[in-house]
């Protein structure tokens, strides 16, 4: 497969989750919807089902207003709308990690508005330094497994869980390897291309994504190194969408050299430890997550330090905060991140992200200003 073919596949997957869902269902596969950000995907994979990310879409919700206030983040509102209007039909269940207040509310909204797709909710322990936290999470993941087994009417064995955990760790390694390799090929791995590669993992099985990533890395390694002379941005936030936003960065010769986006690298950065019991392995990942707005850290400045360290490691000259409108957890973090960037000599660009908004005039002005610096 040529590099062009591989990249086209990533683009197709990232842009057509609904067609992929239908394909899986036609093939007789069970598909489980995964709300952002941290769902225990190995449990789904170990059940022989496909985990499919639910990240909303570029729509203007109308029905969702019945069960959600207008100041709900656009991802959750559009997810609810898509669920209520039948676009997610065929999912056997959805898994929702209650990571913020919107999720607390959404868990009831989903049950009221999307009555034919059962919800498996779970809570992550935020007081991670407490000795009881990991015990709790291991039990919570076990509870997810039991609820999923009931819905799928099949047993999920410890052996299959161990196997799936290894696969997800391998996928993490491939994505991290790609991220580093991409820095030598920023002429090919343009902002939108990079986005498609990472986002595509949300909509296909881990095995399929692994195969595509292996092919991609093999092809990239054949290419001569390219020395990038344009600007270098490190992206943070929940998602860097829509496509037009990333095309603007391309237009102004700005490369994405790394990210801490919830939809992208945050998904792949933390491995599952290999432990005796699968649930201890699964829960270990959460205990080690660094630099995420949805995860409490005893060190109050952990997030800013993490972002600065990462941005500097990939020689970024700016941090672009794709700030999801009405995403409280991210909004609370923005001022300290901006302050820290300023102190460290990194340009900080804040772009408001809203899936239901078409107007990107202000965004264009901000990107232009940055490109002219």
């Amino acid at each position, binding site marked *: 497969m040529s590099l062009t073919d591989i990249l086209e596949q990533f683009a197709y997957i990232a842009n057509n989750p609904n067609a992929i869902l239908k394909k899986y269902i036609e093939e007789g596969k069970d598909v489980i919807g995964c709300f952002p950000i941290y769902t225990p995907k190995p449990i789904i994979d170990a059940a022989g089902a496909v985990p499919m990310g639910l990240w909303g879409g570029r729509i203007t919700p109308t029905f969702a207003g019945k069960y959600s206030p207008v100041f709900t983040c656009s991802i959750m509102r559009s997810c609810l709308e898509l669920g209520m209007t039948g676009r997610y039909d065929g999912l056997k269940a959805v898994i929702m990690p*209650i990571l913020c207040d919107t999720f607390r509310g959404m*868990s*009831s909204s989903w049950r009221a508005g999307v009555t034919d797709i059962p919800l498996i909710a779970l809570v992550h322990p935020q007081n991670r330094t407490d000795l*009881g936290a990991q015990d709790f999470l291991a039990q919570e993941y076990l509870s997810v497994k039991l609820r999923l087994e009931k819905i799928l009417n099949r047993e999920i064995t410890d052996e299959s869980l161990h196997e799936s955990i290894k696969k997800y760790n391998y996928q993490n390694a491939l994505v991290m390897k790609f991220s580093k390799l991409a820095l030598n090929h920023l002429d090919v791995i343009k902002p939108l291309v990079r986005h498609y590669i990472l986002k595509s993992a949300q909509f296909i099985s881990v095995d399929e994504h692994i195969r595509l990533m292996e092919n991609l890395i093999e092809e990239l390694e054949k290419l001569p190194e390219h020395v990038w002379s344009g600007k270098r941005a490190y992206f943070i936030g929940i998602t860097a969408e829509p496509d037009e936003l990333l095309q603007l960065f391309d237009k102004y010769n700005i490369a994405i050299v790394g990210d801490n986006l919830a939809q992208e690298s945050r998904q792949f950065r933390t491995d599952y430890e290999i432990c005796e019991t699968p649930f201890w392995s699964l829960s270990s990942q959460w205990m080690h997550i660094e630099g995420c707005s949805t995860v409490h850290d005893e060190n109050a400045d952990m997030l800013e330090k993490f972002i600065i360290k990462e941005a500097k490691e990939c020689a970024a000259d700016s941090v672009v905060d794709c700030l999801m409108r009405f995403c409280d957890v991210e909004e609370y973090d923005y001022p300290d991140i901006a302050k820290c960037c300023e102190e460290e000599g990194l340009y900080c660009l804040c772009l408001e992200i809203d899936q239901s908004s078409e107007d990107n005039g202000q965004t264009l002005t901000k990107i232009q200003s940055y490109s002219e610096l």
Partner: protein
Amino acid sequence: MTEQKAEKPKRELPLSRQLVNKQTEDVYASAWAAKEKGESIGWSTAIFPQELCETFDVPVLYPENNAASISARHFGNQFIEHTEGEMKYPINICSYARLNMGMADMMKNGKFEGVEPAMPLPTFLCLANNSCTQLMKWYENLSENLSIPIFFVDCLFNYNEEEPDAYKNKYVRSQIENNIAAMEKFFNKKFDWNRFLEVQRISQVNRKLFNEIVALNTRMPAPLDGFDLFNYMSCLVICRGKESTTEILKQLKKEVEEHIANGTSTFRGTEEYRVHWEGIACWPNLGFNLKTLRKYGVNAVMNGYVTAWDVAYEPGDLNGMAKAYQCSSTNSFSTPSIMDMRSKSMKKFACDGMLCHVNRSCKLMSFHIFTGRDIIEARNKIPIVNFDGDQSDTRVFSEAQFENRLQGLVEVMKENKGGK
């Protein structure tokens, strides 16, 4: 300062209210005295296990309660403006947080102008996220700005309708125990388990007394203007484990029973309609809301918010206490569980309607209103109206919209009562 201080009513307050005011003054005074002596002072979320600091005899103040007081006095805007302007926080986050983080930053930088009630800056923070997740982010930011530690009890959201599983309770209990150990080190004091038991006992006496008083408002007409409960609720927020609260609530109960015996009420007007108020008060607009409700003969006899401090357990039972803190705030439950409570309460209080505050600052309560409406309409068959507002941000509430929505509610309630 951006606003003029609101005119205070000249009427003499009942003794119970005078005692509440005195108690609040004493709590703030003891915190300032601790500051003078260079001792520990805590800021705590409203439903943190107060039994811990009460046992250690360390003064604690409550930013949510403080933000409500400052907003009701119309002094909040300067702090909110500072947070959105100089500190660059987005407008969408909770207005209590914006008010408090702005105030803390201004105090830290010597820009604070002594608005009352003024809290001394804390030396530690107590955080329980049973009310919402934003509290965690708010306190993370305070901790970073003030370089002080957080004592954290992660209370877990109850996403199912069933009783929480035992393993959840085990984690919450583990945190309480570990916080006690960490506090012993931080305060350099031994934890007195006998005193702890006594504080637990007092806390239970107080919550039971408050419940009894609230239940008296089921009488028709109600002996209390429902908005009075917002004022007395503060005793449970800031002094749930103190004997002074017992005295206040006994006095209040006596006054309410006198009203019942005399056929009088603190509701000024004729109680034509009884409604349930859903959500936090619009503190900056409390006076307008109260006047408008009275104008239409509407007594908001009950609201779900005031029962959030009903933290029920047996003294000496740490498992029970852990479970109670996990399940105390209505925000720690799913909508069907909460609406089940509301539905029963509205029947008990004979409510003719439900008035819902879509609070721009409280996403979760607003979600409950949207998703819970169908449940209440189906079970209670009473009219429900929403209005937009905020607990502290004065830019959201519209007097015209509030009155207009209330008029609509009254029309339907009137029709339901046969046009009378």
